[in-house]
């Protein structure tokens, strides 16, 4: 009720425009008086009492806080009823003697009452295992049954090779919508797609950093459209386009140089030339050999294998050891 009555007084005061300090102080004085006269009668008596209070000592007894709720909580109570939703930490509601904060001057961390540190951090008091179990039970009715034929991961991957992921957000704020909910991630294993060697290499090249070699997965993340449905359609479109493009062979792909190759090839490499050279020099003078014969020797083949392994897989102890063996065999050491 007081709000109705103060409003005209305040609005009239706001309209007062003054530059001179003396008048300003006069108006602030009158504001105090006008507010006190405008409040309801009980409030006026408290004001005058409060004014006289400093002189005569505390006359009105302050309202005491009651005991915190934790005193009355039983040990076997239903905690999900106390914290049903996400709420900030309330020290009088949580019956745990938690402490948090920096212990100042060899003291202890401060207790929970009035502890801002405990209130600032997010808590998951509303998501105890019991609560989650109850929620799952309640949400089961929205779920349908899992198809019985899909009882292993391999079968799922076989029948449904494309995986689409998106996130939903729930928060209390001005708006229900969260812009991050539009992001769609599409994952597919290239082994499940019908690609030949050239198409596979081209797809990996087109995919650039979206392809992960270890898991053989192509991951397409789209967030350029405002709606999730649009992003999903765009991701599917990208997959289709990649697939079809990788099957096509363009005219300029013939110009693929050795530097563009993904893997190391031994044929036509400097290593092959070196081996040939060396072998030819090792031959006794006058003997004529065919290149293919030379290359067909098992030692050379072994050398080729170890070279490929070294270049493609990297230098490990084992690979280096095998290389050493191959070289030794090649030179009949």
């Amino acid at each position, binding site marked *: 009720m007081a709000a109705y009555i103060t409003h005209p007084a305040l609005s009239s005061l706001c309209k007062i425009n003054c530059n001179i300090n003396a008048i300003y102080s006069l108006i602030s004085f009158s504001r105090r008086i006008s507010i006190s006269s405008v409040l309801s009668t009980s409030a006026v008596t408290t004001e005058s009492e409060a004014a006289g209070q400093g002189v005569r000592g505390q006359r009105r007894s302050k309202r005491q806080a009651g005991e915190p709720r934790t005193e009355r909580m039983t040990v076997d109570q239903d905690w999900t009823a106390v914290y049903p939703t996400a709420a*900030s930490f309330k020290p009088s509601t949580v019956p745990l003697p938690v402490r948090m904060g920096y212990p100042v001057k060899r003291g202890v961390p401060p207790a929970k009452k009035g502890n801002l540190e405990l209130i600032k951090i997010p808590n998951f008091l509303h998501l105890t295992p019991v609560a989650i179990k109850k929620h799952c039970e309640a949400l089961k009715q929205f779920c349908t049954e899992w198809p019985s034929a899909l009882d292993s991961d391999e079968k799922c991957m076989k029948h449904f090779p494309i995986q*689409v992921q998106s*996130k939903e957000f729930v928060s*209390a704020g001005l708006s229900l919508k969260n812009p991050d909910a539009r992001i769609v991630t599409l994952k597919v294993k290239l082994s499940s797609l019908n690609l030949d060697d050239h198409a596979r290499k081209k797809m990996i090249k087109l995919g650039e950093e979206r392809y992960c070699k270890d898991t053989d997965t192509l991951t397409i993340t789209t967030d350029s459209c405002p709606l999730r449905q649009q992003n999903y359609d765009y991701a599917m479109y990208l997959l289709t386009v990649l697939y079809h493009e990788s099957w096509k062979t363009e005219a300029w792909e013939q110009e693929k140089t050795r530097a563009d190759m993904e893997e190391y090839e031994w044929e036509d490499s400097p290593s092959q030339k070196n081996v040939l050279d060396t072998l030819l020099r090792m031959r006794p003078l006058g003997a004529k050999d065919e290149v293919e014969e030379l290359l067909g020797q098992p030692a050379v083949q072994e050398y080729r294998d170890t070279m490929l392994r070294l270049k493609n897989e990297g230098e490990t102890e084992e690979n280096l050891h095998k290389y050493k063996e191959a070289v030794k065999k090649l030179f009949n050491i």
Partner: protein
Amino acid sequence: MASSCSQALKQHVCKSSTILRVHLQKSWPKRSFVLNSAADQQPAVSSPEEIVIPKKKTWSKEAVLQALASTVSRDPTASDYRLQDDPYLTPKTSSEFKLFSLSQESGKNAAKYFINTYPKYFQKDYAQPHIPCLMPETLEAQIEEVSEAALIERIHMRKVKAAVDLYDQLQQAGTPVSLDVTNQLLDLICFYGDSDPAQENVPEQRNEETEDVQDEPQTKKGRASKASDQLKAAWKENNNAERIFALLSEPNTHSYSALIRGMVKYGAYSKAFSTYTDLLNNRLKADVNTFNALITAAPEVKEKYNEKWELIVDLLKELAEQKIKPNLLTLNGVLKALRRCGTLGKSQAFPVLSEMKALSIDPSLASYNHLLGIFYKPGAPFLGQTDILQEVMNEVSGKSFTPQDPDDAQFFITAVRICLDTKDIEQAYSVHELLGVGENWRLLGNDLQQNIYYARFFSLLCMMENIDVMLKWYRDLVPSVYYPSSNIMRDLLQALDTDNRLDLIPQIWKDIKQLGHANRQKLVEDLLTLMAREKQDQEVQESFAECALDIKKMYDTGDRGKVIMSWTATSLSDVISVLLAAQRRQDAWEILKLFKTHNRVPSEELLNKFLTCVTESGEVNHAVELVQISAGFCLPETPKLIQRVQQEFQLSEQQKNILSDLEIQTFNSD
């Protein structure tokens, strides 16, 4: 503070879902949320292994939230959900609760007032999706010119006087107003009784008791009439409704119906019946609402029971003749009227019910309430009628009712009153169980009705159940739902006494203090008497002593020199007995001195008891002082006391002299 912190934290619960590439649907026939089947968008996947992918379920927007909400039960230590959960801000007494909830409402109303008075500052819409009730409402009518559209607008905004004025202006200007609009205007006038309705930014109309009276002188301006005031307004002669009705050239059923219902609502019963005969003379048909109104009015116009009943039967016959289907309100009206028909009501109630059931009208809680009212008149003796309540409870148990009639809210308090009168605890439990089913908690009524219900329930519990069950209910309901009155606390004390659990008294005293009943003389004195009656074990006695000292503080003068309660002789002696039993002689000694200051006379047994205690401790000075006090009061006990002291103590010369002086004094006064 909690709300601002939660906003600052922005609690995100982020749930990642892996959606396989399927879209199908299935309908789910259960629960309160709406499930509809969506259109099938893509063909099913078929493969040699026959993977059958079930159809996707669809549900309404709130279904998930409702399902999650169903996992949450009531917290017995928390106060009302509207209030802040903080020990300082939780109300401890029922008046505090009222104050806090009303102040919250008043804050909301003040905010609404500002938004509606200065709408140009509140145009920006932050909420997504749009929340219409938070935007400013237009309070003034927009259309200014004299036209029918302007009249319709004013009718929608429920401005009775403005609408009537506009109608008159339209009539004077000669513009014909269509019958529909005139009927709407008649509806408006008859509903509000020809005066403007209460403004919406007045605090909620729960303050019907006298506690609000002291607010009246301060709130002279800006406070529109309360809804309760309006109902007391009577139907005035030749008011606007009748005038406009008379101006109508061809009133139809709707106009008659509006007029009759308005008359019945505001107390002009015989006029209503004469209007009805007009309607019949004009060979028009009435509708079901008219008949409902007339049935409600029937008990008012006739005096004798059978005349009332005959009138109602006539009305029902005419209803049937005009081939109008009766509805729930008809049934409730008939039953309500039967309450006032005495014994005739009892015989006719069940036939009425069965006829209505045959017409597939399901009785609501109001019908059951009227039934109970017919058979259980307050104050009348009960002769073999207890099974009616049983039958009613069997009918309604397990069902969830929606509010359909204003009298639905009376059912629970009537039922529990009957249980209290018949001392039937089992039925009371089933009534309470019904309250927990579905949406029935809404039908408990406002705060006053809630208080009445729980007061009766608790009285019954105190009377009938043993103390453990009683305490279990007590801890469950107090103080989160119900703040007991001092009478209930007295009943509780009696129950403690009956079950010999007096050791719980200090706890109950703490609750009494918290509830604000610590200044009720009768209650405190009862408490003291119970504590002082017998000697208890050591620790119990200790707690009693603490409690007694606490109570003593209540009797002291308050901060402003106001005396809250005054000592009586019994209360003082009780306190002293408790303290003596706990061996607190010093405290008891101080309280003994209070006898003199408050002009009360100690009893002889008290002094004897004190003397025994003093003998145990061997304090000779105290003994002599005791005798002196007793002599000061001129008690007839004094000679015996003197003798006892002389016998039991080793007295010094001085003390012997004092005693002999006193003896002579008392001997002389005898």
